[in-house]
């Protein structure tokens, strides 16, 4: 396609409708990310709205053909974490592993209740929650998730592993053979503790 250039030689901004269409198509996913991240409908709505406004205002800085989903998620999570920091909230918990926050008493029959699951998710430090959502639900690769969160791939992996371990512990999933760290992630987890 030949690029359209205006009479004055200026390159016009990318077609608004394409941008809008793509943004619209990504809204359900963006909203699911916001709600799973902050568990507060009103706040999640504000985050999504802020992201739409910011994305719209910066659409010339978006490179068509690149991953718009990752771009939008980055805008949203940056806003979320900046609000957390401004409010003086901890976004990470360096001593998390043995800080049991066992407010959840899951069913004994092995069936996990959705509310228990949500509560368990809420006990995670924000950076670990973000990691497990991006990797486990939003469908990003570790590389993409690391870029979104502005961190290293190894850090992303260890956050996911620690989040998973903590969730297993809270939800009382004891079967390490089936659900425990696999051979690939265990060294990452161990390294994460040794490095501290």
């Amino acid at each position: 396609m030949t690029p359209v250039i205006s009479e004055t030689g200026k390159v016009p901004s990318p077609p608004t409708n394409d941008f809008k269409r793509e943004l619209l198509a990504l809204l359900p996913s963006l909203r699911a990310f916001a709600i799973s991240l902050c568990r507060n409908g009103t706040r999640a709505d504000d985050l999504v709205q802020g992201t739409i406004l910011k994305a719209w205002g910066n659409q010339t800085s978006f490179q068509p053909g690149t991953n718009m989903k990752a771009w939008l998620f980055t805008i949203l999570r940056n806003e979320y974490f900046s609000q957390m920091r401004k409010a003086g909230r901890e976004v990470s918990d360096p001593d998390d592993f043995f800080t049991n926050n066992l407010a959840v008493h899951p069913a004994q029959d092995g069936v996990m209740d959705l509310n228990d699951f949500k509560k368990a998710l809420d006990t995670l430090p924000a950076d670990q929650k973000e990691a497990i959502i991006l990797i486990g639900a939003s469908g990003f690769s570790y590389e993409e998730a690391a870029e979104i969160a502005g961190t290293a791939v190894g850090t992303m992996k260890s956050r996911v592993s620690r989040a998973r371990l903590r969730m297993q512990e809270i939800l009382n999933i004891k079967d390490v053979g089936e659900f425990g760290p696999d051979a690939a992630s265990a060294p990452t987890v161990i390294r994460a503790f040794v490095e501290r």
Partner: protein
Amino acid sequence: MKTTNKDLGVTSQIGEQLKALYRSIEEEPIPDHFLDLLEKLDEAETRASSTMKECE
């Protein structure tokens, strides 16, 4: 090499629950105010660009 998210475990209950939770939100209809907001932004931009053309 591209790593995959396999080791979150397709068999893991946690992975499954998380996906189910996420999917259930994704499947909810988009609240009207987001659509209204996008309409307004689009209109404002169209108006602004037509005003610019008139000035040229």
